[in-house]
């Protein structure tokens, strides 16, 4: 008898028995998931830019919609009269022309008192350097039509 025969037979027996052994079935799913993760499309370098831009846009639009709107300026002297009633407007232009101005605007302002002399109003030389607060009625073209001094 060949002295190697018993070992050959033993190994053949082992080979035959091992044929029924299989890798655990659960491994395939685990490995497939790992494979998918490995080959997932890589994120672009600046992937965070689009969402950031979107968030910024939403924030700005939201602020614009919710922020209080500045009150519209009064279009006639009569609208401000209720708030500040320090006396009548003094016409700097003919009344007929003021009446025909379509888009006159009242603007609160402050200027040197000496400027009143330019419109023919009396100015004390002692107080010529003091500032004076006033409401100006301007035409749509920016021309001063009337003035009211505010104490």
């Amino acid at each position, binding site marked *: 008898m060949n002295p190697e025969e018993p070992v050959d037979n033993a*190994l053949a027996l*082992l080979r035959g*028995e091992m044929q029924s052994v299989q890798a655990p079935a659960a*491994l*395939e799913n685990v*490995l*497939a998931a*790992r494979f998918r993760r490995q080959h997932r499309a890589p994120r672009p370098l600046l992937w965070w830019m689009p969402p950031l831009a979107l968030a910024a846009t939403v924030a700005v639009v939201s602020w614009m919609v919710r922020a209080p709107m500045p009150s519209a300026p009064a279009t006639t002297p009569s609208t401000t009269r209720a708030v500040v009633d320090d006396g009548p407007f003094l016409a700097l232009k003919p009344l007929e022309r003021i009446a025909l101005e379509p888009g006159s605007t009242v603007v609160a302002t402050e200027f040197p008192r000496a400027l009143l002399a330019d419109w023919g109003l009396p100015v004390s030389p002692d107080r010529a350097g003091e500032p004076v607060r006033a409401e100006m009625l301007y035409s749509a073209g920016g021309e001063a039509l009337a003035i009211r001094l505010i104490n």
Partner: protein
Amino acid sequence: MFMPPHDPKAEHQLLARMKSGDESAFAALYRRHKDGVHRFALLYCGSPAVAADVTQDTFMHFITQPNQYDPLRGSIGSWLCGVARNLARKHFSIREDATDPAELLDDSQLAACHVDHDGPLERVLRGEAAEEVRRAVASIAPHYRDVLILCEVSDLSYAEAALVCGIDIGTVRSRLSRARALLAQRLAPAFRSAKEAV
């Protein structure tokens, strides 16, 4: 026996598709080699749980490092066995620091770390005789055991086994011869009992 028929062209095509992210190509390669790798790991480690871990880690390595496989150095199956062998050795912290055939000539000269003292004791195979042979194989020092499994059970060529183990073909031959002698020695009582029974 463990390894599927070697068809390098088809396998390399699958590998190329797998590298480009084709999951079906990976699945095909996995199904082709999973049992061979698992059987090798099971015989080498002696524990189904450890063998399952080694098999999983081997294919994880395949997924993440497919470029490490060199088609000029053997089949994908033998390369996977090499990965499994390395992972199993890492698991058992076996060092390959005694590779001189003269030093490995006799088990009595092996350093303690070269022999599995933990011993794979759990039952793996149903057949009594086959389980006895498996235990005898598991009791052989790892240097001999891996060559014995690769050449005699996994049916790798001497050249492939040499690549897997990182040794030359002459050393594969001498280790295999020694492994067979050790196996005969371990199984001698069983052979005697069988002879007496006849």
